């Protein structure tokens, strides 16, 4: 069991001034799992993603990736340990084509040195060609290869999310963090993202995804963690989690809301 967890948060605390956005969170993500992170608005889910990816430094607690504590490391150091992510409101680089976005994501997989690349040595040109082909294959994998040479900002919102996932995959991560990958999508697009995560998981990737759509979590996640007020309320198989009385009370609140969530599920 201890070896199976690729990611473990231990007594994680993040305070912003007097506010504890994350307040003693414990969480384990099994190797190879698609793990959902759910909870009401303001529960601290995005903060958790920012802490794991190193954009925020925790106030206290440990973040173990493959057993190694990465808490407090710079974001680029955490990325180098095999963690990649996407953002709640897509953050692609303005002015770059889809192919360039994904090639940038492959920065850690460069084989030629920067000097060799500057001098356009044959080895660097081969490396550049390989990077281009790999980026194209990733775009194909997420289904936007036809737009490879277009500016990413000219794509539809759903397509941009796919480009962002391809960019994250370009670093060949062990752990992929998806922050609300289906926000602003219709049911059909959301379903497609769900299937995509399943196929990535089948290729051996571990995925942690923040998700509002409970139906999607029960359909596509192996396990999930329910958060509220910066702590974990329940963790385990999605249906069992959602049936947990503490979760029902905290997450669904009043009866009317609970009914609405059920029809989604």
């Amino acid at each position: 069991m201890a070896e199976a967890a690729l990611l473990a948060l231990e007594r994680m605390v993040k305070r912003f001034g007097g506010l504890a956005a994350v307040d003693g969170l414990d969480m384990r993500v099994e190797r190879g799992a698609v793990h959902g992170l759910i909870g009401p608005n303001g529960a601290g889910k995005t903060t958790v993603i920012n802490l794991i990816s190193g954009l925020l430094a925790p106030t206290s607690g440990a973040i173990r990736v493959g057993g190694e504590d990465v808490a407090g490391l710079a974001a680029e150091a955490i990325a180098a340990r095999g963690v990649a992510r996407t953002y709640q409101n897509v953050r692609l680089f303005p002015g770059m084509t889809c192919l360039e976005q994904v090639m940038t994501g492959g920065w850690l997989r460069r084989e030629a040195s920067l000097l060799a690349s500057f001098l356009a040595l044959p080895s660097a040109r081969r490396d550049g060609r390989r990077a281009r082909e790999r980026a194209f294959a990733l775009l194909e994998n997420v289904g936007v290869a036809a737009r490879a040479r277009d500016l990413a900002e000219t794509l539809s919102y759903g397509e941009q999310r796919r480009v962002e996932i391809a960019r994250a995959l370009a670093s060949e991560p062990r752990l992929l963090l998806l922050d609300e990958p289906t926000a602003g999508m219709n049911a059909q697009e959301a379903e497609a993202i769900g299937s995509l995560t399943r196929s990535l998981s089948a290729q051996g990737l571990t995925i942690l995804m923040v998700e509002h759509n409970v139906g999607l979590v029960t359909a596509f996640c192996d396990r999930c963690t329910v958060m509220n007020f910066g702590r974990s309320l329940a963790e385990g198989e999605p249906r069992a989690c959602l049936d947990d009385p503490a979760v029902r009370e905290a997450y669904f609140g009043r009866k009317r809301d609970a009914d609405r969530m059920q029809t989604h599920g």
Partner: protein
Amino acid sequence: MRALADLWAAYGVTLVFGAVNAVFALSAYAVLAVGVLSFATVVFAGIGGFLSAQLAGAFGWPFLAILPFAALAGALAAAAVAGAFLRLESHWMALASLALVLIGRVVALNAPALTGGVNGLIVPLRATPWELAGLLGLCALAFWRLDGSAYGLAARAVREDAAVASTMGVSPYRLRFAATLISGAVGGLGGAALAFTLQFLSPDTYFIGLAFTMIASTVLGGAFHWSGPIAGAFVFTALPAAMQAVVPQFEDVAKGLVLLAIMIYLPRGLIDPRRAALRRARAHG
């Protein structure tokens, strides 16, 4: 042939100063391309300029032989500046570099052994227009290669969103450090080029006026592609002469109006690859 000679007699000086200013603009662009606004180019230019003047005076070395030393001196100064200032937030970095320019002038005034102090320094040699063109061509070649290399892609990522770039394993600090070194080397080269063009240096040569010229050139030409600062520098340098020819009475006003018009209608500069790509996308639509 005669007409060409006449043209050179009339506009040769403008072209020469355009080339020198283009080198300064490239130095400013080197750091702008990773999202850092810095005026420290002026200081790197001063160090490269006074050093090359001294080398020319003491040993009689020609322009081309001195260039490597000017570049190295600029890069060394840039390493110190990067180490001291690069951790600052962007607007504080800009202010700190401006303070450095002010301090640089005071130092130049009070170190007559190095800079000639208030009397200035005469540079006994001159760079030919071909040498200046060669220098600019070499700088342009270097920026073209940077742009096409892995560094160029990472630089664009850091400039557009440093936090996102860092989660992809790109270290914004290290990239900005490298960019500052490049800016320092190019700034030192520009300083030497100016010294060998003016043939007289004073503490005011490398001061606010130069900072304004290089930033204006870069903003005007566009800071999103290496050819922008070059185009901007030539336009900015030629504008006074052109306005003098067209509307001699209102030269300054006309120059200001043209600059305003470019900034209002082309806010990202004369050369902007993103604008061109968006236009293509609309056309295919």
